[in-house]
Each structure stands twice: as C-alpha cells, then as structure tokens.
C-alpha cells in the first residue's frame, strides 16, 4: 500500500515536471484578433490586436496584399494572390494604410494596429478587401562564431498569420446569387469530397453557409454538416466528408446555401433567399 502510494506520488511529480518543462520549452507565441476586420464607415478605420504572452521581445511586421479565397480545378480552396483583374476591381490595398507596420512587442504586452482608409472619394460604391500578413519571430541574434573548421547551425523560426480586411462603401446591398450546377465526387484514403460546380452572379462575393443532409437508399441519414464558406468567383467547390460514413451505395445529397456567416456583419451578407439543391451520388 505504501509503495503503491509512493509510486502514485512519483507519477504525479513526473507529470508536473513534464508539464513545467513543456511550459519552459515554449519559445514563441503570438495571438492576433480579430481574424477578419471590417472598416467602420464613419471612422474610416479599424483595429487589430497582436499579443505577446511570452517572456521575450517579439519582432512583428505587418504587410498588406491583395488576395481572395479561390478554388483550383479539383475544388480545393487556396488564397489567390496574383489576380490583377480582380485586384483592379476589388483591391483595398491602395486605399488603406497600417500603423505601425514594424515593431517590437515587449513581453506580456499587446500592440494595437490601426488601419486607416485614404483617398477613397473616387471609389465607386461596393465592396473592397485586402489581406493582412502578420509575420513574427524572435529578434535575430548577432553571429559570434569565428570557428574556421566548423560552422554553427541554427534554425530561424518565423510565424505568419494572414487575415482579411473588408470595406463596404455606400449602401449597396449584396445581391449576389449562387446557382448550383453538377455534383461530382472524388476520394482519397480517408475522405470523400463532394465537388459542386457553383456559379456566382453579382458584384459582391458570396458569404454564407452550406448545410448538407445526406441519406442512403433506405432514407437513413448518414451525414449532416454545416460549413461556412465564401465564393468570390464561379468555381468548383469541394466539401469534405468522412469516407467511413459512406459504404458503397447510392446517396441523396441535399444542399442548402444560406446567407449566414458568423464572421461577417449583416450588411455584408447576401440579401438573397436560400438556395436548395438535391442530387444523387454513387459510391463504389
């Protein structure tokens, strides 16, 4: 009994030591909030917060770049940074400035970054956006090694977070509509992807949520999920499901596209009613 108690205490001590060691091993941490910014029409500005909860200085650099969520030929999404035609029409990059752009955050401190609009008087009413890249890392130390037979080797670790900033000029409503085209499927080892051909009409991007209800041939529900997404251009869009939920057979896929998205304020969301679509798929 005594030995057992002692063993338990030792085990507890080991766990505590491991936890403390893990804590000590943390070398860099940066948090940013919020993950999407919306320029206030009255103040023509918005703010982001970068926090350094570590015990050492962190170097941070803010940069702006035009980009939007696009989809490749398989429906997989990525951020497109090189679309000059879209940039010409929608880029907020020339009309917004960040301050400060490069700074050092002291330990346990927080920095507010303010984004302010400039020269927007000639911009037509509509929606504009840009991406914010927040790159951070420990301050670089000076090299001091002069060993001619060997070299000192180090890893320089940087972290970047890319978020978005949006500006809606004027009172134009988002009247974008989505048409749902053909549904196809593809698979990998653990996932099944339902790939929809989505067509977008309207000047605004579609910000909404896809709601799925999938039933098998017996009418039993095998999968249901909601996924928020954005569509900036007509494209194939893949939605991911667990392969284990889909044994070979036929399935009915009900899709509802609704104009709800937690990230966006109401004035950015489409005014259109929900879109319903039902199609069949076969998994072999």
């Amino acid at each position, binding site marked *: 009994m005594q030995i057992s108690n002692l063993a338990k205490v030792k085990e507890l001590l080991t766990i505590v030591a491991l936890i403390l060691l893990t804590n000590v091993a943390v070398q860099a941490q940066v948090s940013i909030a919020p993950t999407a910014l919306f320029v206030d029409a009255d103040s023509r500005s918005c703010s982001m*917060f970068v926090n350094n909860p570590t015990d050492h200085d962190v170097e941070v650099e803010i940069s702006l770049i035009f980009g939007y969520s696009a989809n490749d030929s398989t429906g997989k999404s990525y951020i497109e940074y090189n679309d000059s035609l879209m940039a010409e029409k929608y880029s907020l990059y020339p009309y917004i400035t960040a301050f400060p752009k490069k700074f050092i955050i002291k330990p346990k401190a927080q920095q507010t970054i303010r984004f302010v609009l400039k020269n927007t008087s000639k911009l037509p009413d509509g929606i504009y956006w840009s991406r914010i890249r927040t790159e951070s890392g420990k301050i670089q130390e000076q*090299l001091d*090694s002069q*060993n001619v037979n*060997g*070299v000192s080797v180090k*890893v320089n670790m940087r972290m970047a*977070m890319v978020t978005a900033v949006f500006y809606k000029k004027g009172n134009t409503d988002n009247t974008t509509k989505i048409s749902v085209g053909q549904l196809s499927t593809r698979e990998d080892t653990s996932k099944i992807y339902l790939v929809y051909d989505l067509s977008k009409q309207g000047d605004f991007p579609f910000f909404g949520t896809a709601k799925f209800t999938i039933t098998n041939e017996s009418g039993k529900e095998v999968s249901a999920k909601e996924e928020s*997404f*954005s569509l900036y251009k007509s494209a194939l869009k893949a939605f991911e499901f667990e392969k284990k939920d889909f044994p070979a057979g036929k399935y009915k896929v009900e899709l509802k596209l609704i104009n709800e998205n937690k990230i966006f304020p109401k004035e950015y969301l489409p005014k259109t009613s929900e879109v319903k679509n039902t199609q069949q798929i076969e998994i072999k």
Partner: protein
Amino acid sequence: MIPNFNILNRANIRIAIIAITGLLLFVFEAHSQSKKLFDDNELQCGQQVTIVSSGNLDMGNVLKGTTTYYNDDNVIKFKISSTEKINIRISKYVTSSPNDGTQWSQTWKMGENTGFENTFSHNRVSLKNSNNKTYYVTMQINSIYVPSNGQSGEHKLNITVSVEIDE
C-alpha cells in the same frame, strides 16, 4: 512498524503537497497568461488565432566536410489554435543561408493530436472548420551536412509557418 508507516505517510504527503503546489502554480501561470491575452472589451467583433512554437533552435556546431545526425528530440513544434471554428490553411516555407551546399535533412509532419500523424510533404494544406480547433505541425532536423568548402560562421535554416484564415 507503526512509526515507520507514519513517517512514510508524512513523506508521501509532503511530496504530494509539493506536487500539487507545482501543479497549482502551473495552472495559475497558464491562467494569468490567458487572461492577459486580450481585453474582452476590445474584442467585441472577433475570433482569435494563436500560434505557439517550441523547440531547440540552436543545433550546435558542425565540422566542415561532415554530417551531423540528430535524434528524435530535435523537433520544432507549432501549435495553431483558434477560439472559434474557422477555416485555416497552413503553409510552410523553408530556405537556408548561406547558399554554399549545406544540406539540411528534415521531416515535416502534422496532425490534430500530436503533430506526427500525417506527413506534411506539400507546401500547403487546407483544414476545414473541423470541431477540433487545434492543429500541430512538427519539423524534425534529421541531419546537417556542411561541405568542406562551406562558408565559416553561422548557417541558418529559415522556416516560416504561415496560417491563412479563410472566410
């Protein structure tokens, strides 16, 4: 027998108190850090995303013309988390300097539990708004080869892990 039993029990209790105190200190520290993250009044509109990285960045010295091998302990780990369900995309960029033929053998992996579940062979991976809000990326240095005519001084492997947040 009885006194021995009591002494041992006291020792156990003492150790247990130390252990619990240590645990409480850790919890307090973690809590105080999390409290300092952001003022709720300032975060009315948003979610928060955090990257934490840990690992040994100083790989020591390598003699020119040799390869130094590293064990499993040399792992750099990134923990990516958010306060809400958001779609994220993780990318990695790796460069080395100087460009003198030094070879860095490395293994990248990622996953939702330990960071070692799946290989991270492509430069980019998309993660949909899964219910699990934390992702791990790991990078292990297996070996470093410095050519005999390599430059003296400091050699660096520059790694950037980028997290893109999608609407």
